[in-house]
């Protein structure tokens, strides 16, 4: 029952006999809602949810169930396989390439997420003020987000080519000499982080911009009258007010980083050596290059588990922070 009582029940679900609206062909209005109409009304919400539910079932839930089943099988191609119990999970424990991929994933995520969010916030604060060409600047920063990952990867491979790339030519023009960028295991991950941060800051900026504009200006004005400096207003007022947005952005960015595949695949193929091999790449390699569908499914589920644990921890932390406020 609705907390507001029966008056707010959905159309067609009101108690029998209370509706006396005339219907065409029943000018006297003698026809009242019968059990058939009530039944139809009861199904209405399900009909609305139905299409989305079916899509979720077909493209999310069923594949997840299949992936779980596949993770307990040894199969080279989709469809056929033999049950091997927890062998795939046991293999994960002693797989050195998985350890490398996990470590690289952590480095990549830690490198991209806070950097993209911090720059995105700084840009949002800057572009939240009346500036000439503000709209153009906002659009320019957002453009990389809508560019296809493969396109970004190809263009960036050229830009960071140590022999004829724009990046080294610019450095040489400044008399700084070139960098190996993607060709050294020591700089390849940093280069990838730079590229991914560049694609991500526009997204963070737009979300923060929306959140900044929802902070009442009276609060800032009151703080200014009370003598708070610009930095204090930002630190003590703006940042806490942005906490829910930051929380969502953090989760989204971590998800993006764990799923970052195309740019890395195109720019380094996981190399040099194993220096940029991340977990999602290893899943792909296991499935299609190594033809180990069962193992790839187990790795995919590990990725889901990591995301799940992170999201739960983050939600718990946010809840605690809200309770403290």
């Amino acid at each position, binding site marked *: 029952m609705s907390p507001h009582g029966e008056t707010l029940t959905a159309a067609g679900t009101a108690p029998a006999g209370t509706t006396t609206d005339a219907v*065409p062909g029943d000018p006297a209005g003698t026809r009242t809602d019968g059990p058939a109409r009530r039944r139809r009304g009861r199904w209405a919400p399900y009909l609305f949810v139905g299409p989305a539910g079916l899509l979720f079932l077909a493209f999310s839930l069923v594949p997840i169930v299949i992936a779980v089943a596949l993770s307990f099988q040894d199969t080279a*191609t989709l469809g056929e396989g033999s049950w091997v119990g927890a062998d795939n999970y046991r293999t994960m424990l002693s797989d050195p390439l998985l350890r490398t991929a996990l470590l690289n994933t952590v480095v990549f995520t830690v490198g991209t997420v806070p950097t993209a969010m911090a720059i995105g916030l700084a840009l949002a604060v800057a572009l939240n003020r009346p500036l000439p060409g503000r709209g153009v600047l906002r659009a320019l920063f957002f453009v990389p987000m809508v560019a296809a990952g493969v396109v970004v990867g190809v263009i960036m*491979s050229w830009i960071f*080519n140590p022999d004829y790339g724009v990046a080294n030519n610019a450095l040489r023009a400044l008399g700084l000499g070139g960098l190996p960028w*993607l060709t050294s*295991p020591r700089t390849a991950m940093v280069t990838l982080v730079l590229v991914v941060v560049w694609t991500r800051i526009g997204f963070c900026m737009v979300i923060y911009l929306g959140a900044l504009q929802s902070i009442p200006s009276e609060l800032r004005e009151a703080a200014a009258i009370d003598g708070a400096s610009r930095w204090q207003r930002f630190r003590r007022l703006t940042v806490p007010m942005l906490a829910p947005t930051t929380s969502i952005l953090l989760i989204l960015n971590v998800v993006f980083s764990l799923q970052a595949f195309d740019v890395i695949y195109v720019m*380094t193929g996981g190399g040099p*050596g*194993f220096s940029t091999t991340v977990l999602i790449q290893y899943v792909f390699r296991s499935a*299609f290059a190594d033809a180990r569908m069962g193992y790839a499914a187990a790795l995919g589920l590990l990725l889901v588990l990591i995301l799940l644990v992170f999201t739960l921890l983050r939600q718990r932390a946010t809840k605690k922070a809200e309770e403290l406020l």
Partner: protein
Amino acid sequence: MPTPVAGTGNPVARRLSRRSFLAVAGISVAGALAACSGAPTGTKHLRLSSWNIPLDLESYQAIADEFVAAHPGTSVAVEVTTGQFHQWFITRLAADLAPDIIRITPQQIGRYAANGSLVDLTGAVPAAYQDDWSEPFWAIGAKEDGLFGVFQHTDNFITYYDRRVIEQIGVDVPQSLDEAWHWDEFLEIAREAQRLTGRYGFGYGWGGPETAYRWMPLVYQNGGAFLGEDGMTPSMDTPEAVGALDFGGRWYADGLVSPANMSKSGGGAVGRDLFATGQTGLLLDNPEAIAALDEARPDEWGTTYMIRNDGEASDLGGNALAVTRSSKHPELAAELVAFVTSRTNVAEFCRRGNWLPARSSLDAADIGYQRHESTMQQFIDQASTIPLSMVRAQSGPYFSSLNSVFADYLDLCFLGELTPGECGTQMTEAMRSVTTR
């Protein structure tokens, strides 16, 4: 009394109208689904899938049209293989929607021949065909339990040189396979070329991590092998294989090759780009470089044979045609494969697409290449140096996985992260973990 019109207020008429609408919609959807389901229409329809190379797609369609004209009641559509091959093919096989015929590389075919994804063409392809294929080229499709593909065309690596650089060095260019530069000679020339270009000596024609195998001929040139005689035992830890890794390591340690020119580095054909822009004096690459060099540096380059050491070897490029298990008309599909790989059609396909024929009886004059006939003949001659054991290794059931391992460890060796000895040992161990799965 006038007949009630739907939607004019008569509830009965309106309910009927709605029902009618739903019925019509249902029938339409069912009809549309039936039409899409490929229900038998009397015509035997085949689908042939190829890489997205416009000239090749046109050639296949032209050959297919001839086939259809000779086979009333059939139709053939040429499609494009999209995205990453294994992902594309595995998912389509799982849905039983793979094309009838696929164009597949020697490095990809082994897995699918071994796991029952391809149809045995024995009997459908004329027995005389085998006589016109070299043993290595026939072995790409011919496995112990059947014939799972017919190698249609090939390509391999030879040496491109900058005419100005070679003239300044004053070295004679080999005119036959026997005269091909040995490793030490080649490195000397490359050092001179590096001095003259001021950047690098030469480039190598990799095209991404999936083409790491293009470096494998160097192992065979040094008398080594990727897999043993049984085609299954990893053997990259032999002195010959380690010697080859050492040779490759020197390319980078001496600065003769750009570190951006490795199998796993991105950016496409880096070696080719460096040669086209005059930053290297030599290039080891396949015939695909010709078009790019014609555009960038017409008449400024020449070609000679692939380098060699104790032995000769070159890259195994090209494609076979195979019939998939999804085919509803495998006999007809096999017939089309035989038709496409007939002598006439192989010659025409190679002429239009600038490919090398898999058939031994065809030379450059028979094909009538529109440009660079002597260079194309060098490629055709070089094809005879592709070793059978390398073909068996690359067209074996585990090769896709082994190729990833090869790419990983070549990178580590060439970057100096591992010594050639360590690389050979660790690569062999990693390969063993694949072959013993």
